[in-house]
């Protein structure tokens, strides 16, 4: 109970951090560097919470979560993503073709992904206004759409499945139907 409260607090703090970060990113000329800094900051925060709850030996494996990317042709790629890393960074480190025109500075919607499981989607913090502004323009928007740069790996998201929307096909007619929430 206490642990989950603590986690929530952490998430809250990070969300505030994100907010201030996006505000400064507007005038910052090195949004990428800024984001990297934010990324490591997130990492530390999460690491400390997980380290508290787990024994030393378990920390190592708990630091990475399983993520499955489904590409445009429906092919799946299973990768391990360190806690604290964004799905955009993770995709690029693993040669998964997820576009990232603005490199995570919340100025485009090219890293749009669809969370394929509503329960997983609900574990994510609400998108900020800035993210929603970009999602407005995303191609093939669905009820469980997010920007890959804004989904940060955390232990609860282990096993999350993310679909990369195809430009020329519609997931809805291809068998995948995101459930309304």
């Amino acid at each position, binding site marked *: 109970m206490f642990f989950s409260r603590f986690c929530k607090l952490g998430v809250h703090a990070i969300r505030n951090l994100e907010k201030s970060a996006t505000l400064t990113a507007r005038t910052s000329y090195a949004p990428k560097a800024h984001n990297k800094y934010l990324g490591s900051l997130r990492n530390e925060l999460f690491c400390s919470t997980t380290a508290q709850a787990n024994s030393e030996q378990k920390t190592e494996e708990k630091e990475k979560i399983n993520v499955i990317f489904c590409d445009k042709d429906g092919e799946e790629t299973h990768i391990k993503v360190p806690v604290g890393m964004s799905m955009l960074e993770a995709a690029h480190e693993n040669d998964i073709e997820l576009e990232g025109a*603005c490199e995570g500075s919340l100025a485009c919607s090219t890293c749009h992904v669809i969370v394929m499981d509503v329960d997983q989607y609900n574990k994510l913090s609400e998108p900020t206004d800035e993210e929603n502004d970009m999602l*407005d323009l995303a191609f093939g928007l669905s009820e469980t759409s997010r920007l890959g740069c804004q989904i940060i790996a955390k232990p609860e998201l282990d096993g999350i499945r993310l679909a990369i929307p195809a430009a020329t096909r519609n997931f809805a007619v291809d068998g995948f139907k995101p459930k309304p929430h």
Partner: protein
Amino acid sequence: MKSFGKIRRIARCFSTTSSCPLRICVVGSGPAGFYTAEKLLKAYQSVEVDIIDRLPTPFGLVRSGVAPDHPETKVVINQFLRVAQNERCSFFGNVSLGSSVTLLELRNMYNAVVLAYGAESDRSLGIPKEELAGIYAAREFVWWYNGHPDCRSLAPDLKSSDTAVILGQGNVALDVARILLRQIEELARTDIASHALAALEESSIRKVYLVGRRGPVQAACTAKELREILGIKDLGVYIKAADLVTTPADEIEMKNSRIRRRVHELLSKAVTPGCAPVAGQRELHFVFFRKPDMFLESDDKSGHAGGIRLEKTALKGVGDDESVRQVAVGTGEYEDISCGLALKSIGYKSVAVDGLPFDTYKGIVPNDRGRVLADASCGHVQHDIGLYVCGWLKRGPTGIIGTNLHCAEETISCISDDINRGALASGSTKPGREGLRQVLDSRNTRVVPFDGWGKIDCEERRRGSLKNKPREKLATWEELLEVACR
């Protein structure tokens, strides 16, 4: 013997496809051109892609369209840079289609040509006195503050009045309004052209009207740009509460479009009833349901704009209930706004080149998912083999940078189909870039290669660092070519 010959022919056919590379020329180095090049290079190991651009500088609207205070949007240049560094890709700057090289020549030299040169002209209003001084296309104003060499000497009049009227409510209109209203210290830290910064520093514009023919539900801007302009420091925002009342048809439009819903919500939140202007504060007025009727000449300055007459409009639904579209119709009631500066932000238009089918009404090249249609007028669809379009020239001047990603994918799937059915292979190797070089040499064209752009880039950053700016753009043709050819 006969079958042996056949086998040999097939074998030769195979060897031509494997040994001689496919050479593709992309015209235009903006997002549409670069995304096309990137995806072609990725899809085919044997393809060579040459990108030509009429400017000595690459990246199209990322350089000359994206507002200087949106540096994060320009980050995509990093990705295009990696494409240009690919050894199978070459950049030919300062090469203009139609004058340096013709379309026919390009088509003879390459297996395929992809036109992605965008939209470099403007739609006009077609109202009386549109030619008065002080009236500009928003594109020209944008090029001016972004240091495009073709608008270096635009010198828009920012001093003869305190009011600017912007016609249109899309993102370009909002960009232009923001540049006019934003605090100069904030602009000074961007890569805005220095001649524009100097003029804006002395600007007397305090009041900006954003005029739309329809209502807040139909405003063409996106939430990000709207949120940004509403958040400008020390700016009074004026929206009439009555304009925000929605009709059942508006409700349907908002239900069908998340973006329309969110834009309306933002505008509604910005309404501050009974708020009187604060002395000295800059003002932004959203004017809905008004269409331009005619420009008015200034009383004291002949030949110069002094105002604009607007006609009040009402919305009329066309189409069925579910996919209702509302158009503005005049009501016969007029009102005038005085202004010394008017910017028309009602849409860009592409320009045709010789030998290219062109739809003058839509301002695009008639095409089928990117394949140029040889003649759209006759009943049957006929593709012009080996000629493709991408970006604004293909679909008109709408969308964001990322839209070109999907646009390029669509065009490339057509190219792939044509490659797979052997339509683009030719008996002999096409001369490609060597042929292009020869033609340009024979005409004494000063080609700016990608490392020429590198020199411009370095020089701009160097000059920028002296002024605490990310870059100081070289804004004349002479300077650009001089630095590029050092």
